[in-house]
């Protein structure tokens, strides 16, 4: 796919693919990421986004062309991969007015009924392109076009943790309380980020999310079970 290489300051290398949100590009990025992890040295972090991969280096770049040559070689060399499995995570969402702080406004401006919204929002298998914005916040691809809505002109100051929102062409979950410009249509009891866990975030780029509707009673029941560490998020291996 011929990605391009740029120095990003003195201690990072930015690798870019064509500016598209696509599954093919995502998989190529994740494949390259895994090759870099196993064959490249001298970096302390590796992040991905829709069409880019950034390598954070421990030391300033001395010979950029040489680094690029090494990386191009790694990109082109086939490798036997150990672990590129992706999972589908089933995420419960309560689409109730109590949690969906902007639900009324959203339905009115989109001219949709609540049932139509729930139907459209829970149908797709969303792809996690990458995590960013907030710790553990997944950038999801796959929102039906009929649910698009321009972001709020004035962002809300405190969107509660767990809020499920729609903004522009995207949908996502606020993993912690934060200001935000998306319309909140519901809430999930699942914590997406726990700093005290060895692996604070169970979602990984390339995984899939499926939302399913729960009642308010279920919401509190699941919250309770989570508190007692008695709830496991349903997941299964993803088969393309």
């Amino acid at each position: 796919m011929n990605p391009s290489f740029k120095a990003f300051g003195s201690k990072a290398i930015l690798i870019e693919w064509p500016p598209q949100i696509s599954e093919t590009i995502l998989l190529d990025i994740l494949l390259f990421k895994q090759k870099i992890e196993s064959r490249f040295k001298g970096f302390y972090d590796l992040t991905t986004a829709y069409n880019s991969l950034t390598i954070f280096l421990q030391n300033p770049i001395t010979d950029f062309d040489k680094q690029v040559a090494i990386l191009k070689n790694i990109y082109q060399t086939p490798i036997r991969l150990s672990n590129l499995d992706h999972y589908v995570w089933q995420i419960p969402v309560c689409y109730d007015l109590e949690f969906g702080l902007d639900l009324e406004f959203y339905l009115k401006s989109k001219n949709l009924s609540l049932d139509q919204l729930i139907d459209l929002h829970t149908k797709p298998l969303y792809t996690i392109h990458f995590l960013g914005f907030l710790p553990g916040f997944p950038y999801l691809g796959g929102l039906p076009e009929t649910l698009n809505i321009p972001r709020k002109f004035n962002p809300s100051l405190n969107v509660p943790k767990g809020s499920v929102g729609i903004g522009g062409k995207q949908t996502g979950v606020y993993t912690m309380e934060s200001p935000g410009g998306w319309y909140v249509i519901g809430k999930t009891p699942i914590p997406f980020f726990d700093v005290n866990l060895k692996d604070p975030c169970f979602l990984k780029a390339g995984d899939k999310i499926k939302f399913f509707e729960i009642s308010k009673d279920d919401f509190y029941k699941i919250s309770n079970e989570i508190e007692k560490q008695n709830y496991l998020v349903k997941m299964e291996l993803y088969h393309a």
Partner: protein
Amino acid sequence: MKLKNRITWLKWNFIMHSIQVIKPGYCDSIQDLGRFGYASIGVPVSGVMDALSAKMANALIRNSQQNAVLEMALIGPVLMFQKEAVIAISGADMSPKLNDIPVKMQTKLAVKTGDILSFGKAIYGCRSYLAVKNGFRTDKKLNSYAAFNGITDLVILKKGVIIPIGKQLKIFRFGHSSIKVDRQHFNNEVLDAYKGPEFELLTPKQQDILLTDGFQIVKNTRMAYQFADVPSLAHKCEILTSAVMPGTVQLTQSGKLMALMKDCQTTGGYPRILQLSDEAIAVLAQKNTCQKIKFKIIHL
């Protein structure tokens, strides 16, 4: 065995210490050099805004550079030492006083049990750093002490909070190690920057404006420095959300420049036109609202 001998030989006398916040400052937080390696799960780097001054404070009392320090912005706090300690202050001058008597910055100081260390408004600079022997010992999260909302329990210092600090050597040699303040660090108005990934999206005229004009700071937080709108830098370039890091200078479509700082998000959607050097980040961290800066391109 070897270590045990050493300890006996030196007759080290350790005491558990802590500091109590009597009155918080404008924005005080515990910081180290940063939380590295978690950007891929969306966790900001955080850490000291002015790494040069913070490292200086640690160096003055021969701390490890990994030790956490207290970062204070604009107006400093009033602190009480619950046991004796060895400290050093560097960075912005907030007229530090020990029991109401002015004390020197840039040098090693001894404080006794019950001593009150107070800071005022910054006379020059914006951020001051307090280092204590063996560092502040709040809970380490994801391998770092750096305070961040949602990551660490303690974010901004509040009245009454007790902050544990490292064990203190009871006998500490006092030499005359004080270091002169590098005025250039505070007076410098030129920030060294590499061309950012989207620098070439600017027209030649815009590039010229970016590198010759002075830009006025209108907002200053740990997340970003914002500059006054420059309508001539307005553009219509869009990029897909991609990586950003401390020092990334973004340009919004309306012509607003933002230099991202240590608490910035890990991804952003505005064109990244410059990338500040580490030194330039430290210089900018000492600037206040209304001050002006310029950018100068440097190359790898």
